[in-house]
């Protein structure tokens, strides 16, 4: 069902709405849109409260900074850009309510944001029903740019597959082939687990077991005892956020870090910050890291960010927000239009300029599945790590080398006629 929302701003929809008005006696007169066209509005839905508040906060900071830069450089189509931030609480229900508000009341031109995959999925579905461009900045589930891909949804952060492929090889080669998994019991966790196991089996390793822990688990000891009994070479922890903090702390409490290698897929600055020194350990993948000494523009960006935000370094989340907002502006300016389909066409294949990409090599939204192809940063937490030096990147792996092809990802894109 695609409802032609009369409130949408772009011309194509307006024409459609005009045509639909003849059919539907309930179509409302839309008189006020012309006045509100002066600014270009980007609706940013991110969690400011709830479990993901820290991650969401940094995405918002990145996006805010990007919008200021865009406005300094002349905005979008010569018009000023406004970022409207709404709190999703990390829950799909409030997120869609906020989307309804942004679209119907504030009449935003684009939607961006999201940390949790659940929210990304519901916003993608919502945006699709309203013919609106949505860029998922931080929700990782494969399906967003895979089986459930839509013509109007893009994604800046990587896929779960890329997160696992980023550090699979170094781990497997360095530490051994018997692995045990502790997996958060929801879509994101299941996906990471499946992806790791696929690579592990292919390489000739064994998954000794998988303990499913519900989201929000605070006490992981029952899972740790299972892991300990299995005597693996590598203990893979797939939790995120506060859950990972608790898991790592308890891993150290039980002395298990001395018996096996603790590792995982995604790791974030926000999580490492919350860890007591004793639990700072493990092999992980970052999706972006502030310390890239030889890459141009990165130091400038970090400096600007730090002076703006209380001397905190930007995190991968900051970069997601930053890159997403810039990408929307670049695409709209390139398309010379705010029309959803035209912006989508411009985003497809759009390569981020170095001052936005802030990493080596090519960063672009792949045209076939709308997935950003950027680098992965596998590495480890060094001994005696302290903020902001909480991670050592061992290598940068170009996303193009490890990402599934659009066909493998299962994306079949259908565009509106």
């Amino acid at each position, binding site marked *: 069902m695609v409802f032609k929302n009369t409130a949408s701003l772009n011309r194509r929809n307006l024409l459609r709405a005009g045509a639909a008005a003849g059919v539907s006696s309930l179509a409302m007169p839309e008189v006020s849109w012309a006045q509100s066209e002066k600014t270009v509005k980007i609706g940013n839905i991110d969690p400011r409260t709830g479990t993901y508040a820290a991650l969401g906060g940094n995405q918002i900071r990145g996006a805010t900074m990007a919008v200021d830069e865009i406005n300094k450089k002349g905005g979008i189509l010569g018009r000023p850009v406004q970022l409207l931030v709404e709190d999703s609480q990390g829950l799909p229900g409030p997120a869609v309510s906020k989307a309804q508000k942004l679209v119907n009341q504030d009449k935003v031109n684009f939607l961006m944001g999201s940390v949790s995959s659940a929210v990304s999925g519901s916003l993608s579905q919502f945006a699709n029903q309203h013919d609106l461009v949505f860029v998922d900045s931080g929700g990782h589930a494969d399906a967003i740019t895979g089986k459930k891909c839509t013509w109007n949804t893009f994604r800046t952060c990587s896929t779960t597959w890329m997160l696992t492929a980023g550090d699979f090889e170094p781990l497997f080669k360095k530490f051994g082939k018997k692995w045990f998994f502790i997996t958060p019991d929801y879509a994101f966790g299941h996906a990471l687990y499946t992806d790791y196991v696929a690579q592990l089996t292919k390489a000739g390793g064994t998954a000794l077991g998988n303990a499913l822990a519900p989201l929000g688990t605070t006490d992981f000891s029952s899972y740790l005892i299972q892991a300990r009994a299995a005597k693996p070479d590598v203990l893979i922890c797939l939790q995120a956020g506060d859950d990972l903090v608790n898991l790592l702390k308890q891993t150290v*409490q039980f002395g298990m870090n001395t018996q096996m290698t603790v590792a995982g897929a995604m790791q974030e600055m926000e999580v490492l910050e919350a860890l007591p020194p004793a639990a700072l350990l493990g092999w992980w993948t970052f999706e972006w890291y502030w310390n890239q000494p030889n890459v141009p523009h990165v130091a400038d960006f970090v400096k600007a960010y730090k002076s703006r935000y209380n001397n905190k370094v930007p995190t991968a989340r900051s970069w997601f927000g930053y890159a997403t907002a810039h990408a929307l502006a670049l695409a709209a300016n390139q398309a010379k239009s705010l029309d959803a389909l035209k912006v989508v066409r411009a985003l497809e294949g759009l390569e981020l300029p170095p001052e936005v990409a802030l990493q080596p090599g090519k960063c672009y939204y792949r045209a076939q599945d709308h997935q950003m192809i950027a680098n992965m940063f596998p590495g480890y937490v060094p001994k005696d790590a302290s903020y902001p030096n909480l991670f050592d990147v061992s290598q940068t792996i170009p996303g193009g080398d490890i990402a599934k092809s659009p066909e493998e990802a299962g994306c079949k894109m259908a565009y509106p006629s």
Partner: protein
Amino acid sequence: MESLLLYSVFNGLVVGIFYALMALGLSLILGLNGVINFAHGTFMALGGYIAFTIEPYVGFWGSLIVAPLLTVILGLAVERVLIRPLYGRDPLFSLLLTFGLAMIMEDLIRTIWGAVGRPFVLPGYLNAPLSNTFFFLTGYRVVLILITIVVTGALFAVLRYSRIGIRIRAGNADLETISAMGVNIFFLRAANFGIGIFLAGVAGILAAGQLGLSPSIGSSLIMPSFVAIIVGGVGSLVGSVLGGLIIGIASGITAAFFPVAQEVVIYVIMAIVLVIRPRGLLGQEGLFE
């Protein structure tokens, strides 16, 4: 397999201790003050955060004493200003008020200490496992159990032997008579509320060391505490402790063998108790409530 069972019982015991401490405080406040203190969980979180803040200055053991007392001061202020006007009114109102209070306090905690979880650093000697076979017996877990035994024991001693304790118990049974005997029931209620909050504060610090701190840690522990009260028996303080330990252990065992049901199991236990023994394990039989 045996060690898994042993372990999961022990693990459940540790979780049950938090439920029991929370349920004990809730139960005290429920009995004498007639208030379902929905903000009990956030008071607990507050205790943990205060300990986190003062720990660098007074050390772990110092914070264990100072932080609950600071929490109690705030609790007494809340009791005086917000809850006292509601005594004698429909319990709906105090429930709603503490519900709103819990939202405000959680938000304030997030504003003050940040949305990111905070590490609560324990002294190194508490972190190590005591023995290699029983690796789950970390020093901290043992200390946690000992502290709980001491605190609970002290509480029951106070209730049994001290003047205020005897009055609290009497007031719990019959507030009118106590009041007619010339006891200042406003003071008694405030003192009782303070004791309840003290227990929450202690639980908060212990939980901070075991589980870490996050703004929403309180709300995840308060629901099982309600169940503990219903299972243990309304009006029975020993019942609340027993209820907390039972559901803690039940959820610990379920977590090891059938993890999908580890939360649901405590509610199932509650439903069973309600059907076959509505007054709870140690509850008083009342004809009409």
